[in-house]
């Protein structure tokens, strides 16, 4: 019983925390300087990981799917399957999970460390709104960079797929690209990419919540980092189910 009430209490606190951050986005003053720093820390610094992961995943995906497609006489569909997989699902989901692992843990640990070493109190003493400065900027940065990173992941995946395909069938780049985008519509690209804004909101809110509200010394720092990654990842996967359903509802062509 205690676990259940604890769970709902956590979800309630998280929701209030996230809504408070969203409300603060529309009220000045804006901390532009710190916001840009977060874009750099969460977005730019995640780019190598996202690109490398996308490339590797693209290679592996083609290796796995191509043989099955060939056995059905549909080898030419490999680029198309690759683009559908990446743009619709793999790119958004894997980007979300990777950013949750890299940036989420970092945000949780950094804020918890600031809390433990009284840096957050010091900000308040200096009349900074610590919530606005530390949490709102990070949550907003997560919301904005996630779709951009997803685009990089999508194209890195396609590039990996092309390398793999080229090694096997010597397919030209032009042919691969034409085939990959032959049946890909905007509805396969825009809604799945934009759904990662929700993933970004989840990562930012969960990580900031655990980091900002910790009060347990060095153990709190460890717990904040771990909880940030675990809960962010879980919520991303669960919310993905709902978001995919919503996309199918609003863009029925995608469900075919």
């Amino acid at each position, binding site marked *: 019983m205690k676990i259940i009430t604890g769970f709902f209490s956590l979800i309630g606190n998280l929701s209030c925390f996230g809504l408070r951050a969203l409300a603060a986005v529309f009220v000045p003053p804006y901390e532009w300087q710190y916001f840009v720093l977060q874009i750099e820390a969460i977005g730019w610094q995640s780019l190598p990981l996202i690109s490398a992961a996308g490339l590797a995943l693209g290679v592996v995906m083609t290796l796995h799917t191509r043989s099955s497609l060939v056995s059905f006489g549909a080898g030419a569909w490999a680029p198309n399957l690759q683009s559908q997989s990446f743009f619709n699902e793999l790119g958004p989901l894997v980007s979300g999970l990777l950013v949750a692992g890299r940036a989420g843990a970092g945000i949780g640990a950094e804020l918890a*460390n600031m809390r433990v*070493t009284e*840096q957050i*109190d010091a900000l*308040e003493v200096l*009349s900074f709104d610590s919530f606005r400065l530390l949490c709102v900027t990070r949550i907003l940065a997560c919301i904005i960079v996630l779709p951009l990173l997803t685009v990089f992941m999508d194209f890195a995946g396609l590039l990996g797929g092309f390398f793999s395909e080229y090694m096997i069938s010597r397919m030209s780049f032009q042919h691969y690209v034409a085939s990959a985008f032959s049946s890909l519509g905007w509805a396969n690209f825009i809604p799945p990419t934009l759904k990662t804004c929700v993933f970004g909101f989840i990562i930012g809110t969960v990580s900031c919540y655990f980091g900002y509200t910790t009060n347990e010394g060095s153990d709190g720092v460890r717990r904040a980092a771990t909880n940030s990654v675990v809960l962010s990842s879980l919520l991303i996967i669960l919310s993905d189910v709902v978001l995919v359903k919503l996309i199918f509802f609003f863009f029925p062509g995608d469900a075919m």
Partner: protein
Amino acid sequence: MIAQFAVEFKHITKSFSDRKVLIDVSFGVAEGEALCIMGRSGIGKSVTLKLMIGLLKPDSGQVCIDSEDITPLPEKELSRVRRNIGFLFQSAALFDSFTVGDNLAMPLKRFDKSKSPSEIEQAVNETLRAVGLEKDKDKLPVELSGGMRKRAGLARALVLNPKLLLVDEPSSGLDRITAGEIDDLLLRVKTERNTTLVIVTHDVRCVRRVADQVAVLDKGHLASLGTLDELESSENLVVRELTSESAK
């Protein structure tokens, strides 16, 4: 004539969950005076400082800064009050990702928006020189020793020329010589700038050098308030133990 208190506690009670940390505590610190707060660990000394600057709100009672009750003030109003208060945290609480110079420039940029970059730099340099860190302006906090961090924290607390300086455990984690240097700095702040000091400490040597008054907290209550000499001969065993230099 009634003395003007720079900071005054009026019947303050503060509890966390079921634990009452402060019970009906009242005292005042006159302008330009130094009050040291002593007590056993976890007795509520740091909580007292955080109440003074509005980081915590009391359950009941009033915290008055320059005769103004700050307990009902919203954050915006608190910001005005905090403009005149410096706070040296136990861990110095320097911002890890900023250099020492940037740590000092931050409050100046926040409170003194009329100041030009060159004026800010000048104020930072002057304050760092006052604490002997003029050569360490571009260092990150992680590159500083414990004593240097304390001095940098003190510099940040002083950069706005506060009328009231709150200091949490200035000598914790420092050797006797470095702790003595920090005491010297606090004494200079008090005498040269006429800044009111409230210092939480266990260090009787610091108390002897800096304090005009000593307050001892015990079991949530103000057990004693007076000069160190008065408290050393107190009938209260805890007060005597805490204020006795031989006990250290």
